[in-house]
């Protein structure tokens, strides 16, 4: 992993969290409204979770060669 994206992400996360703390930008009546920068965290971790879940599911379980379903029917 390159250093620039990590650096940019962390700086932006800090900016978003502090902006949220200062201006109370996150609204809602759930517990999440109390977490500073909640939706930034949700977006980032959600993206990470989906990439990871897709990678794990795909590589460990659900992948088959492309003509998997054709193999035993074409004769």
């Amino acid at each position, binding site marked *: 992993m390159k250093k620039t994206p990590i650096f*940019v992400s962390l700086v932006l996360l800090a900016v978003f969290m502090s902006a949220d703390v200062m201006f109370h930008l996150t609204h*809602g009546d759930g517990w999440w409204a109390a977490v500073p920068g909640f939706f930034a965290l949700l*977006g980032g971790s959600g993206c990470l979770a989906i990439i990871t879940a*897709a990678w794990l599911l*795909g590589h460990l379980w659900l992948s088959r060669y492309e003509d998997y379903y054709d193999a035993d029917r074409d004769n």
Partner: protein
Amino acid sequence: MTLTEIINTIPPALVLLIGAALLPVLSVRLRPLVFLALPVLALLMIVNLEPGTAAGFAFMNLELVPLRVDSLSLAFGYVFCLISFFGGLYAFHLKEKGQQIAALIYAGSALGAVFAGDLFTLFVFWELMLVGSAYLVWAGRTRHSAGAGMRYIIVHLAGGGFLLAGILWQFSQTGSIEFSHLEGAPSWLILAGFAVNAAVVPVHAWLPDAYPESSVTGSVFLSAFTTKVAIYTLIRGFEGLEILVWAGAVMAVYGAVYAFMQNDIRRVLAYGIISQLGFMVAAVGIGTPLAINGAVAHAFSHILYKGLLFMCAGAVLFATGRSRLTELGGLWRSMPAVLVLYMIGAVSISGFPLFSGFVSKSMEIYAAEAGHHTAVFLLLQLASAGTFLYTGLKLPYLIFFARDKKLPASSIPRGMYAGMGLAALSCILIGIFPQALYSILPFQADYQPYTAAHLWETVSILLFTGLVFWLMLDKIKPWPHAILDFDWFYRRPAGLVYRVFVETPARVFTRTNDGVMLLAGWLSGVAANPVGFIIWHAGRLKNWIHKLPPPAAEPAVFDPNRYRGSLGAMVLVLMAAFIIVGLASFIR
């Protein structure tokens, strides 16, 4: 009754269906023009319809209502006409009569279904949609589309069977076939039928199986009608049904994860439909006016931006002949206009401010929050991030950028650009003027999408999704793989079922057939010279006893001269016969 009043009792579906019947007699130049005129005509009729109209007639002892007009059916009617028009432009270059007719039947029956006031009329249009759409799947004319179309038909016939069984049960219990809010035991069968068409996980696998195998233009129509008619029927029949909230949340996330795993661009978009339908199904389950408004608004804008995305994917396939991410890359140089149009669709579906997703999808998410469905709210937000990830980042990155494969791209017809352009324009217009969309929703809406909190939330989610994508860019690689889904359960045993129920009986039949033919051939050989057969076998037996070689073969055909006995022997036999008869006459 004035003429206008009479016209206002004609179902707009008839315009498209009659048009489909007329199309075969028109010349090849005229057909695309008529195809474009028909949705415009239908739209004019729909605009003039009075909400509250219910035009019906008695058929045997049933009260059929082919035209029932209210704000819910009108909203779906408008967008079906719009996408038919855009799709018609996109397919303007098409010379193939069959696809044009099928698309019109499909669009017409979808219109018929949303204006149907009773369950039987709904069922008829429901099945008619299957006819048109199955043809469009087969129109892909590949080995895969043949199988996918057949599976599509089988799954939908099963779903239609549930629906019909539910309708009949409902009718026998209540004596009414009116289509309004449904409750009681029969409604579960009807719900099962609706769920198949709404691609609710786990009965969703027909969708990503069939849509990517359709023709370039066919998949645009497919992406619009079947599933959205199902959303309409769910709203009409099952609004506020709790189980749909969870079914929808599961669909939204499931579709997003699966979309991310796919290699075929149209299959990515097909799983994207499931994810987006999840938002709508969840909103139907929540059932508050805000949620229902959200489901209708989202369906409306979804039809337009998903149509646009399928058009762009089709344009890539049309120009390069490829639709696999593993084979694509670096197309921004040769297809910059398609890239721009695609990105408009992608940011619309991702819910960027000033685009249609922002003003429609958010209503559903807020309805979940306002209804205190916290987990569902968070799952839908997660699915939103996923939507941006696979449609807005991964697909364009791998199609238009990434490694330049130096693919030759042929130019695409102007009609395709026109269709994509208008669809893109509609996405932007809805995003900028959401009140136009809100004014046609079923409930009075005082929803404001452009608030500071909503903008903050959207920008946070989208920005950090993008950042993590950038962070993981090295890991984003397409896989040349098939990904298993629930269709495994009927596709994997298909080989075994085929062997047991088709191949084995066929083999038994063939063997029996061969045996009978062999026997018949042998018998006919014997029958040609039965005397020779007996004499030869008798001679062979005699020679075998005497340890001699078998006698020479008898002629194949009977020859009377060869086997005629001597005159003396004949006289002897005759005399013996007379003696026996004479002796017998003495016996009393």
